[in-house]
């Protein structure tokens, strides 16, 4: 897996969790037993866990605005494109192993690209 945010390649320490859709639907039941569905807009998100490295500036990452993030799943020949995204969440930094968790890529424009 390869993670690129605003042109900078980051090392993902753990598996990413991608929520690519921009709507969330819930189903409910009417009194007569028929189903209704509600749709709520949400932002597409990807939870990321990074590995620290020399020169990695967490403040610059979290202050970035409208950046493009590309998540490439190499073995699946697939890319997720989060366009005009922001990095949200509160990063937590583990000094023992350099793991940085708690960050999410959020965007209202997310696409899945299948590579040939």
């Amino acid at each position, binding site marked *: 897996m390869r993670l690129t945010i605003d042109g900078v390649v980051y090392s993902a320490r753990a598996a990413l969790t991608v929520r690519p859709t921009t709507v969330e639907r819930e189903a409910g039941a009417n009194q007569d037993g028929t189903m209704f569905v509600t749709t709520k807009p949400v932002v597409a998100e990807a939870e990321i866990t990074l590995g620290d490295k020399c020169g990695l500036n967490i403040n610059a990452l979290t202050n970035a605005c409208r950046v493009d993030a590309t998540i*490439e799943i190499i073995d699946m020949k697939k890319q997720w494109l989060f366009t005009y995204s922001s990095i949200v969440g509160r990063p937590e930094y583990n000094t023992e192993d350099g793991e940085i968790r708690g960050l999410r890529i959020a965007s209202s424009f997310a696409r899945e690209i299948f590579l040939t």
Partner: protein
Amino acid sequence: MSDAHLNEAFQGWQQPQTPSGVGAASANAVAAAQGAPVNPDDPHSVRLTRPIDTHQGRISVLTIRPPKAADFMEIGTMPFRQRISEGGTQVDIDFKLAGVWLSRLTGHDQSILGTLESRDFIQAVANLMTIIGDVGDDAGK
């Protein structure tokens, strides 16, 4: 890839005959966006044999902007070295570094550029060398 194939791809770099300048690049990029034919002699535009998906949508023309001082200072080195010997001129290309330059000058990250067809990437590298070479030719004038 054979040396002959590479030499053919970089023929334009060895004898650059292309117009340079921001005006030509901008006009060509606008023309490409509108679906008009791209000037094949303009190194700032690369017509792709296979379109790629980017954050700006699917593109069939890769636009390479002129480099600025910040590009040279932050990347730090050129993507190619030219060696002149008795047998002629040989160009050593660092494709990894060329990818860094292209990512910076096109605005597309390397994961996106990695989906280019090989021939399109090689053409883009050749155009990049022409663009950087033009900068060197213009320096001091």
